[in-house]
């Protein structure tokens, strides 16, 4: 996969409970926004999570952020032009244990 320049990252701080992910992905599918990638994990004591959404940089980005800001379980929305979104394309390499890398190469 090749990193495209037209992508950017939205960083979300969200309440951590079942259903939050549905609210966010549901918003993207209902409003027809493209969602290229998601990374998510708990922070601190686990009551909140941080989410990184890889999205296309286009005219709808502003709307996307405004709609995200309206969601009850989203605490902070920020557009992270300064983040390295190519991480999303290297995820597979990062997540596989060193010793197994060779085994999974073909994927």
């Amino acid at each position: 996969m090749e990193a495209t320049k037209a992508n950017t990252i939205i960083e979300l701080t969200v309440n951590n409970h079942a259903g939050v992910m549905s609210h966010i992905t549901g918003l993207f599918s209902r409003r027809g926004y493209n969602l290229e990638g998601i990374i998510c994990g708990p922070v601190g004591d686990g009551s909140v999570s941080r989410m990184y959404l890889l999205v296309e940089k286009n005219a709808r980005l502003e709307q996307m952020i405004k709609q995200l800001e309206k969601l009850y379980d989203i605490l902070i929305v920020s557009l992270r032009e300064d983040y390295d979104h190519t991480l999303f394309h290297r995820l597979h390499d990062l997540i596989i244990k060193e010793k197994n890398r060779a085994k999974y190469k073909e994927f």
Partner: protein
Amino acid sequence: MKMTGAQIIIKLLEREGIRMIAGIPGGANLPLYAALSKSKIKHILARHEQGAGFIAQGMARSTGQPAVCFATSGPGATNLMTAIADAKLDSIPIIAITGQVPTSLIGTDAFQEVDTYGMTIPITKHNFLIRNAEELLSVIPESFQLAMEGRPGPIVIDIPKDIQKQQIEIKRWPLMKKKKKKDKIDLAMIKKMTHMIQQAKKPLLYIGGGIIHSGAEKLVLELARKNSIPVTSTLMGLGAFPPDDDLFIGMLGMHGARYTNYILNEADLLLAFGVRFDDRATGNIARFCKQARIIHIDIDHSEIGKIRRSHLSLACDIAAALKYLNPLIKRQKRKEWISFLDRMKKEHPFQIPQSSDPLNPLNLIGMISRIAQGNAIITTDVGQHQMWTAQIYPFRTPRTLLTSGGLGTMGFGLPVAIGAGLANPKRQVICISGDGSFLMNIQELATLAEENLNVKTIIMNNGSLGLVRQQQEFFYDKNYMASRFITRPDFAAVAKNFGLKGIDLGKERDPEEILQKALNEKGPCLINAPIPFDQNVTPMVPPGAGNHEMIGGE
């Protein structure tokens, strides 16, 4: 004090001031009903959950306060969906409390299990699935807060049966104080807006449902009169501006009068207040008010720039903004612009039928408006009768027109009228419906008979899905596929069989006299009014056209 989840819910609803709840019991919400039976809250037994949802909407739309409905799990919850989605699109604060299968069975495809939480995500302002009884103490007060704060909207609270039965110790009840967010108004922006308005030659107020939600109608009137700014309203805004005022130019959009849409097209500044640039109001957005700059004020910041870029904007309560804006605005006469309005009104008037036939649809609505009490609440269904009503019924105060604007739900009129009647027992409530729409929630006649409310229904009966038939005539080569009913129920007889009074104006020599008598009598009544099947709503903006490119109504 030990209490069950169900008892806690009812207690919290009482504390929120809820006096009535519409709903239907079933397996998964029986504990809730057991607790409700011990409460002073009155229960209205609907005959379909969609009816219950719309009864709650009738209460909420007519009063501006949140209203509650109950349904059981599975089909109970799915039947509510249309009423919830309808509330979402028109920003109506209802709280739907649904029973769910016990926590241990969630996810097992248990009897009457559906993913109510998942299904209601896109049609609510927010929703909750309760995981333990303690959560109720925060979720229920918070739901009332959420339903009303900012842009109002529906909330769903899905509560598994075991949690309704779970006993917990209650030490103290949550504080009832509602946080009220104060709008911080950007005064520099207000000044810029003032300047732009005063510089404009042909400004126009384009107002919508936001004015009614905000209670800003007096401030809008003040602004319009002070600076001589003509006013057009969306369907949802009708009632927010006096229809007889010289500055009022009627409803805009797909079925707006010719002069209305022509005047709009001339404007050089559009004051879009409490509106969301809905496609039925704007027509083809690229051709909408092309020469106009736009000042957009809406409480929902995601509406700003969603459809159309504005030149100046504020995301705040419209009344709060106008309190700062109005004093800065100078008096202006705008003689030229006002004389243009008068000329357009004369040259392209709304066409009132020449015939005096009382059963001509527009004559019929005129007749209803002459007979109805000044503060009567009018509900409509969806279709031709709704548009005719919007075109000529003089709505003088907010919340006198209750209509499904965003979702356009047929079957809306009767249950909403029941809800409005329950919440406003001293007022006259009239549901103007069509035969197609009315059949979609006709079972609520049983609820109406039971409650014996002062609710009148007038069915404008053309034996067809009139607005569909009209579109087929205009745009589908008169191929009237599936828009004409072959069987025609005798609605007056149907009403009688439900235990209500039923009248058929088609069988009367003097329909006006009979209608007058029927509307002025106390109690419920259904009035069937046969109308010609081939009368169209005009003018009409064809799909894809600009508002000024209307057909008909000349």
